[in-house]
């Protein structure tokens, strides 16, 4: 056990918590993280690395953790890749280690490390090329098993997640000293303030590094005072366990709240806050850098700041004998904390030639050994962790001999501090390299700007580059509290510590723990020409893991700069992209799952259809009955039954989904002449005309019947999926191009329900209903208004089946009454419903096109044989000029034809390609294909190059790689070519 006898600001020693790791039970204390509890239990090996399966331990104490990822929970609550350093311990927590087989201690994947010469940077680009077939069957499956992170969950997540919206004047990310002070200032100024902190505690690093005195009080008392003052302000909202994941344009920010991860969930587990803020203040602090030296990845090698966090916050000694390797004064705080807690500090290695600061002197006075201009040359150890280090003198080039051996079980690395500039970078701000402080800090000349062009993201405290408590508080602005703290001497950055003579790299100096990227990998990338920082990143995968290079990027860029002989500022940095830390898939979905994933549109008869055994199909956002199941008949049988009903008796179709747009005004006719390819202004009131609509590229986009209700009013029918689009299209032209026209439009699709009554008995059926509409007198393509069965109806004599057919529209509240009335009076006439599949076969038998089947956005009216619907008289309409362009007038365009297979029983696959004579080239494709019960054979429509001149020609239709079938090109009108059946 390595729990210290005393200390630990966050733990409650009286409350014990039980949990399991890899099935083994452990005890921790309330306030522990999973990482601190495992360290307290002496568990140091927690993971195997991604590529080499090297044993790895906890490196950090926060969200930047690259190694200590676990699977959390089990069954339907299993979640992979969670950082132990952020998991607050609770009773019953279950965690398992990742990327090992069969167990952490004996992992067969470790063989990878022995063969690591075979896996240099970019190895997968080089090694797995040949033979091609091996990738799919050999390389990929093997790599998937041995590389990678946790296992994806397989069961549906039972927890709930939600999105919330919030607005504020100032959003402050980070609850350390700078964030607290910034919130206090903004709150006192009367602003609406949100202050969020990703951990469960306020105070940031001051909780650990409490050697400063602020406004005459110990640091911790000052924090408590700030929090109490903020809690008393009504205009300030404080939220813990909430990370500002992203800052976007114009003050839009996403906050990720882990609301219930530390307990058994009640209510939503995570929340995604979508915040619009006037100003965003990033008080996101800094992250300490590791130092690349040989063997810097053994369990027990940790960031110096994390070592003292474990001592001070959780009362855990990460080691009994620690060696500190530091580049700055701040690192000495770790040695002092360990010493104070009674843990042995074996040596302090300082990269600087002459360390003299106050903290350095305190260490010397405490009797600790300080070795200057010295680094760690090599770490030795095993899977349980560090055993000893060997020193190396610095400043003698790479050609050096290793020095003294020092026995130890923990190595603390203080490689300097990097500001967390992510929020600045997310929203378009630039960062600059500050050579004096060896850090990227926000460039005040290039801040993110809001819609008024004013800066709206400001980084304060450590995030802005402040290194001491005094500077941190001063950076907030306003009256600065007085701070008494030890002055610190300049740091000396160390990007690489050699381990052997003559520049040999010898062993692995890790930069990116999570992706196993070493100094040698970056040097290799530079030698191979990947000189841009973006290229080197992608070639080596530096910074591409779930930690997004929080520890590794700066060191990696420095190594690249050094290898290329360039200045750090000239190499540049990669772009920080949101989210700051991974967020759960559940919170991205929020409430929008299941029925709420995408709302569905239903007609007024939906429940009736369902009761009658309808099988629904999606059409746009609608659900339409595809067919109605009767008794135990098969799919084909029900479709055939419905087709025969329409051809022989009378069928009812719920056509309510068709778009209905009212176009009204003195210029309505003139406007529709521009919208449709054919003439609409000449249509007489009481008449209908089928119209085609193109875009200005000359391609078909919609079709439908237009009825002229009166002199100034037209009703335009659109396709089921097209009503919103066509209405918006009309409005676009009216508002932006022909705004002088006196025309109004209204989309009344859902106000009216509409039914097709189709078949030889249609008229007889309708005449049985009482009313004032003279169905016999209504001519084909005629329109009438009147009363039928006591309901106000619009009647259109139009046909999409080729049969005698009327479409009746009623205000939607009458829909079910009219539908049932039609069924009630027509039992002996054979009336019954038919679905969309019967509809499609009926129209295909007649050669009628469907937008989206016969058209695909590259098809003109001429291509589908509808030149008759393209007016030659009009000066202009949308699509007219485009149809004169050379490609649209050339010979050999694909044209709509019918196909009759040689074997009448064979139904072609939809989309099958027609082949050229030599079989080398596709000359067209099948657009609609069915078995036609009416003519007793298969029928298909297809778009074939120069098809209209190929009537009677036999073409090969490719079915798969080996098979093709023969079909004869024919007219697409397969049934009742003269239209005799609808003109009765």
């Amino acid at each position: 056990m390595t729990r210290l006898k005393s200390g630990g600001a966050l733990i409650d020693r009286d409350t014990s918590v039980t949990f399991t790791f890899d099935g083994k039970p452990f005890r921790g204390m309330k306030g522990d993280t999973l990482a601190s509890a495992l360290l307290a239990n002496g568990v140091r090996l927690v993971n195997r690395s991604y590529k080499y399966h090297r044993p790895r331990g906890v490196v950090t104490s926060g969200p930047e953790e690259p190694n200590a990822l676990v699977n959390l929970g089990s069954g339907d609550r299993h979640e992979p890749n969670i950082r132990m350093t952020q998991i607050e311990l609770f009773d019953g927590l279950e965690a398992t280690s990742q990327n090992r087989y069969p167990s952490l201690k004996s992992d067969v994947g470790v063989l990878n490390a022995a063969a690591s010469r075979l896996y240099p940077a970019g190895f997968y680009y080089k090694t797995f090329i040949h033979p091609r077939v091996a990738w799919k069957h050999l390389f990929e499956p093997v790599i998937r098993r041995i590389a990678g992170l946790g296992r994806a969950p397989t069961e549906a997540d039972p927890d709930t997640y939600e999105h919330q919206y919030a607005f504020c004047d100032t959003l402050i990310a980070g609850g350390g000293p700078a964030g607290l002070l910034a919130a206090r200032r903004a709150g006192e100024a009367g602003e609406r303030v949100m202050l969020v902190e990703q951990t469960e505690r306020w105070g940031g690093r001051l909780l650990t590094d409490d050697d400063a005195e602020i406004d005459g009080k110990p640091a911790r008392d000052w924090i408590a005072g700030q929090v109490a003052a903020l809690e008393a302000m009504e205009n300030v909202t404080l939220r813990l366990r909430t990370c500002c994941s992203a800052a976007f344009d114009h003050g839009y920010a996403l906050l990720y709240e882990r609301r219930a991860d530390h307990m058994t969930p009640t209510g939503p587990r995570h929340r995604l806050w979508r915040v619009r803020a006037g100003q965003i203040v990033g008080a996101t602090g800094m992250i300490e850098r590791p130092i690349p030296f040989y063997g810097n990845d053994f369990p027990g090698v940790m960031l110096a700041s994390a070592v003292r966090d474990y001592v001070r916050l959780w009362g855990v000694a990460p080691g009994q004998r620690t060696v500190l390797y530091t580049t700055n004064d701040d690192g000495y705080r770790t040695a002092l904390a360990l010493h104070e807690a009674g843990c042995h500090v074996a040596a302090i290695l300082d990269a600087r030639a002459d360390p003299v600061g106050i903290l350095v002197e305190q260490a010397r006075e405490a009797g600790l050994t300080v070795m200057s201009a010295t680094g760690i040359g090599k770490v030795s150890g095993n899977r349980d962790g560090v055993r000893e280090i060997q020193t190396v003198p610095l400043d003698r080039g790479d050609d050096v001999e290793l020095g003294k051996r020092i026995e130890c079980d923990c190595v603390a690395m203080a490689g300097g501090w990097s500001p967390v500039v992510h929020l600045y970078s997310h929203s378009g701000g630039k960062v600059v390299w500050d050579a004096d402080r060896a850090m990227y800090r926000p460039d005040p000349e290039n801040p993110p700007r809001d819609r008024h062009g004013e800066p709206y993201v400001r980084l304060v405290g450590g995030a802005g580059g402040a290194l001491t408590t005094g500077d941190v508080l001063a950076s907030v602005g306003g009256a600065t509290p007085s701070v008494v703290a030890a002055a610190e001497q300049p740091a000396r950055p160390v990007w690489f510590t050699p381990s052997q003579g003559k520049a040999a790299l010898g062993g692995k100096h890790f930069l990116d723990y999570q992706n196993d990227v070493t100094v040698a990998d970056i040097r290799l990338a530079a030698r191979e020409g990947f000189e841009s920082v973006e290229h080197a990143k992608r070639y080596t995968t530096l910074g591409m893991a779930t930690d997004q290079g929080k520890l590794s990027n700066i060191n990696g860029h420095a190594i690249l700069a050094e290898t290329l002989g360039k200045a750090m500022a000239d190499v540049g940095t990669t772009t920080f992209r949101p989210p700051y830390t991974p967020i759960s898939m559940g919170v991205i979905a929020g409430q929008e799952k299941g029925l709420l994933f995408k709302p569905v549109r239903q007609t007024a008869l939906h429940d009736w259809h369902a009761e009658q055994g309808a099988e629904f199909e999606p059409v746009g956002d609608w659900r339409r009955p595809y067919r109605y199941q009767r008794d135990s008949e098969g799919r084909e049988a029900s479709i055939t039954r419905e087709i025969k009903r329409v051809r022989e008796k009378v069928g009812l179709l719920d056509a309510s989904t068709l778009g209905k747009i009212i176009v009204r005004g003195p210029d309505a006719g003139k406007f529709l002449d521009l919208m449709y390819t054919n003439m609409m202004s000449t249509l007489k009131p009481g008449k209908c005309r089928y119209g085609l609509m193109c875009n200005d590229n000359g391609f078909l986009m919609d079709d439908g019947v237009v009825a002229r209700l009166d002199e100034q009013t037209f009703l335009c029918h659109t396709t089921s999926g097209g009503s919103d689009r066509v209405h918006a299209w009309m409005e676009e032209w009216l508002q932006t191009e022909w705004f002088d026209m006196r025309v109004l439009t209204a989309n009344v699709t859902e106000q009216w329900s509409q039914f097709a009554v189709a078949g030889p008995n249609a008229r007889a059926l309708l005449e049985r209903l009482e009313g004032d509409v003279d169905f016999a007198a209504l001519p084909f393509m005629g329109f009438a208004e009147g009363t039928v069965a006591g309901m106000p109806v619009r009647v259109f004599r139009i046909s999409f089946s080729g049969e005698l057919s009327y479409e009746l529209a009623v205000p939607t509240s009458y829909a079910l009454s009219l539908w049932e009335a039609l069924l009630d009076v027509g039992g002996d006439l054979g009336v019954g419903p038919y679905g969309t599949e019967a509809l499609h076969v009926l129209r295909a038998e007649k050669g009628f096109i469907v937008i989206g089947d016969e058209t695909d956005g590259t098809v003109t009216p001429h291509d589908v044989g509808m030149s008759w619907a393209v007016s030659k008289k009009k000066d202009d309409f949308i699509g007219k000029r485009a149809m004169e362009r050379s490609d649209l007038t050339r010979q050999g365009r694909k044209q709509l034809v019918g196909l009759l297979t040689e074997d009448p029983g064979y139904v072609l696959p939809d989309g099958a390609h027609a082949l050229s004579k030599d079989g080398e080239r596709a000359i067209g494709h099948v657009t609609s294909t069915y078995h036609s019960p009416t003519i007793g054979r298969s029928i298909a429509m297809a778009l074939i190059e120069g098809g209209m001149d190929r009537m009677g020609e036999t073409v090969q239709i490719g079915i798969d790689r080996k098979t093709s079938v023969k079909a004869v090109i024919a007219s697409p009108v397969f049934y009742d070519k003269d239209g005799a059946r609808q003109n009765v």
Partner: protein
Amino acid sequence: MLLIQCPVCGVEAEETEFAPGGEAHILRPEPGCSDAEWSAYLFERKNPRAVHYERWRHAFGCGKWFHMARHTHTLEIFGVYAADAPEPPQEIRDRIAERTAP
């Protein structure tokens, strides 16, 4: 996500409430135009890394089209104006000149 004010109904709302309509002030040529003119109208767009005059529709609000002057890099919005304006109003051009002066 941009924050946009609709000049027609006055509502200030999230970008997701609006639909973009591409570059503004593109004249639709007369039917007798050359192929090159028609092609330019259909396909040629400026796509600048600078001030962009563009069309937007308040799709999930009042439904009206309008024009907006926006910097495609800084995302600064210099103003919104009527859909039937043949060119940006002087007031917006002045603001752009003032805001983009070197």
